[in-house]
């Protein structure tokens, strides 16, 4: 047992893993969405459910319109994914401790096997990035051969969300450890960042000032964090550009 004063409060910290997303060069091509689905064994839900707000995308690309024809403009594509908040509103409301803060990785964890499906976390997520397994979505044979063995396959009644590809984090850490070194910046990245043809997504250590994400954030300077005013301490920085 340890004493409460030893518990780190992430409010005082900057988080560990973070992302920088450049909306100016995001073309909305959906490569990240597909990559995420393939990496993380995300179910597809079919036409009816996906049109009824039940699609399981862990990352979605939002776009709005400004102005009227012919002066109409598409707002910069905005990939929206779990912001891995430092002070996440989803966490305290789970009655079963199924969504908790990882103190080792400073991520929001969703522990599938502990989830009982009250969906309170999803209601309380200001970013609306959690998706719920409304059914046991069919994955006809032999599609299951594609499933990533590093990621749990979720069944009905379980909440899920972007994990910042924690399986890749662990794999990289394991590899680094086996080689007796620290994880290098850029040694691995999330599936979305890896696929992005425009390199609009950069992933890395935000607590390391030398990392590419920190450098990018510094270079671009005027990044925004969504709904920061709610005090959620999100770890994804957006650059609108333009």
């Amino acid at each position, binding site marked *: 047992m*340890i004493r409460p004063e*030893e518990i780190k409060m992430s409010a005082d910290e900057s988080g560990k893993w973070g992302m920088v997303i450049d909306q100016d060069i995001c073309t909305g091509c959906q490569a990240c969405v597909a990559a995420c689905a393939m990496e993380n064994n995300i179910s597809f839900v079919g036409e009816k459910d996906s049109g009824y707000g039940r699609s399981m995308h862990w990352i979605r690309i939002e776009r709005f319109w400004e102005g009227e024809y012919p002066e109409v403009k598409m707002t910069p594509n905005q990939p929206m994914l779990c912001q891995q908040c430092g002070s996440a509103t989803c966490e305290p409301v789970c009655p079963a401790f199924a969504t*908790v803060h*990882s*103190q*080792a*990785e400073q*991520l929001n*964890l969703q*522990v*599938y*096997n*502990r989830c009982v499906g009250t969906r309170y976390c999803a209601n309380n997520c200001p970013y609306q990035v959690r998706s719920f397994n409304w059914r046991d979505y069919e994955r006809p044979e032999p599609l299951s051969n594609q499933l990533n*063995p*590093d*990621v*749990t*396959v979720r069944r009905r009644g379980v909440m899920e969300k972007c*994990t910042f590809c*924690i*399986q890749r984090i*662990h794999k990289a850490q*394991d590899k680094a*450890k*086996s080689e007796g070194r620290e994880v290098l910046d850029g040694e691995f990245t999330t599936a979305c960042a890896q696929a992005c043809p425009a390199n609009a997504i950069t992933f890395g250590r935000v607590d390391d000032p030398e990392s590419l994400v920190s450098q990018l954030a510094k270079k671009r300077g005027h990044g925004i964090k969504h709904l920061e005013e709610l005090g959620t301490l999100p770890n994804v920085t957006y650059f609108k550009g333009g």
Partner: protein
Amino acid sequence: MIKRLIDWLKQPLGLIAVGIALLAVFSFAAYGISLTQQPPEQPVQFPHQTHVAFGIQCLYCHPGAAKGPAAGIPSQAKCWACHNQIAKTETSLLLAPLKQAVLSGQPLEWVPVAQVPDFVQFNHRAHVAAGQNCENCHGDMSKVTIAENPQVFNMGFCLDCHKQVAGDDHEKLVKLVDCGTCHY
């Protein structure tokens, strides 16, 4: 009728009968539970102790344990490499399934013994690298034929060891008991 039955059951003899019935139910349940703990039927009654006695290292057949998440079952080619040089292979009834499988090119269908649920991401490599011996979890293979689980692989088993290994190192403890270390 029912009243008479109840009255009879209140007799000492009836009480004994009730006791015996309850005992039977409990033993049946216990037997059922113990059945689930028996090592499953395997295609080959693989004698682990014989192989260990020959001085074959665990990692010779299960090399994945040192390299990655899964220890793995050896390929039949690996079995055959030794066994086709052993005369007993031709005669032994025990080895007939192996011979048949190799010759017919059909894989043997082993039944996994040591398993964690799918929502647990277990990595052998990290555990071997941390100095854990195989028998810490899988028991002493020099004493069993078909592999058995000496303990149930539940979260308590994992966590107890993790806590013990972390000791006073707080940072290590945080890492080792983090939900996200195993569940994602």
